[in-house]
């Protein structure tokens, strides 16, 4: 499956969300998926501004679009999902499969 993980943090910041997205990507790749982490630095934008931008971006050739940040729901895609917080130490395959369900 082709999976887009969307991160909204700014470059040169080292926040937990970014690290968790990287951990999630690694887990999904070990399960044989093709994963790309996209960085759209909109974390501090107003909700309506972020939505306006996100609604124009296209992820059509990805099967799933996921993020820990609820802003991801502004993306127009049939399979877009906010993934709940998880423990980076031990991601079970079942948990990762749940992200793609």
């Amino acid at each position, binding site marked *: 499956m*082709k999976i*887009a993980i969307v991160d909204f943090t*700014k*470059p*040169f910041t080292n926040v937990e969300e970014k690290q968790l997205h990287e951990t999630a990507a690694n887990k999904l790749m070990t399960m044989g998926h*093709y994963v*790309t*982490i*996209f*960085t*759209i*630095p*909109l974390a501090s*934008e107003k909700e309506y*501004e972020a939505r*306006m*931008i*996100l609604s*124009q*971006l*296209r*992820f*059509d*050739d*990805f099967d799933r679009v996921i993020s820990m940040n609820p802003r991801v729901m502004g993306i127009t895609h049939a399979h877009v999902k906010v993934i709940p917080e998880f423990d980076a130490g031990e991601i079970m395959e079942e948990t990762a499969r749940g992200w793609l369900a």
Partner: protein
Amino acid sequence: MKVVIAVAKSANNGESEVKLAINIANIAKTKDILCEVIYLPYYDDYCAILDQIMAYRLIPQINDADLLITIGYPAFALQHPNKISFLYSLAKSHHDQWDTDYGKLCQFFSRSRDEQERAVICQCEKKILEESKRIFVATEYLRLQLAHDLGLSSEVADMTAEYDMILPKSKTQAKAEFITATTYHPYERVALLLEALSKTQHPAKLYVISYPGEDMYRKALISRIERLSLSDRVIIGEPLSAHNLLQYGAWVTAERTATEYRPEMRLFAKKNKCVMAMTDSGAYTECLPQKNLYSDAESLAFGMDAFMNASRRERKMTCSAWTYEKPLQEIITEVIGV
């Protein structure tokens, strides 16, 4: 100094862009420059080019960075006062393919209305690209296109990625005489290669390296293989290691108006192995000898037969040397200002 490298990428395309970004980031790191690579989505839909450019445009400026390096289309639309752009193509549908069968896919209205739509995209590309302090392009063909379509000057850089050596060597013998690669998009014209193969006198085989692509195009190609009764002569398989790739006789491509070189093709050419392309294959026509360029399926079939009958020495091909003013490493060092 802080550098952000922004790469426009889709699921099915963008490997060259990614490799170039990693290359630049590695060079920056050796110079102790803080560098971060970010990926932005782009989907090659001729109806939504302007929408996507607008979205890139609205993304807030990355103020923390002293330099923004953009790679691929349309990453150059990001805003920054100190911006350098690397390009492998413009909007294919509105430039390389506009006057071809593939360009017609985005022409819905009258000719004048379609031309107006195209003019808006060209104006937009020109206005935004003018903000870049320097523009680097992958081929001379693309440099001329930028000058002709947008009136912009750019510099040709050696942006073609080296073919990956990461894959393990295997002792498996080549499964075919000819080899090509595809993401299944119609403008790659694998169908034309199949037609040529069906016309050869020699029962030569073709190995098609399959890269991720649209499923509907993949299915269409498979049904074409069956229709032409080529199932036993065409093998669709995975990418190969450089060692295994070079076991094959000739790299063959029919891509329409290519604006960049495939790394596999360049590996073949560098080793003086045969590469065949079409007379309308864009950038390929810059470097291949005239005798290796074919105008249609019949002449390509003839060329394939001639290759099969040729001796090992006759099969060798000399490519026009790729001459670049400066090596990529020097350009990057210059760009990041160290």
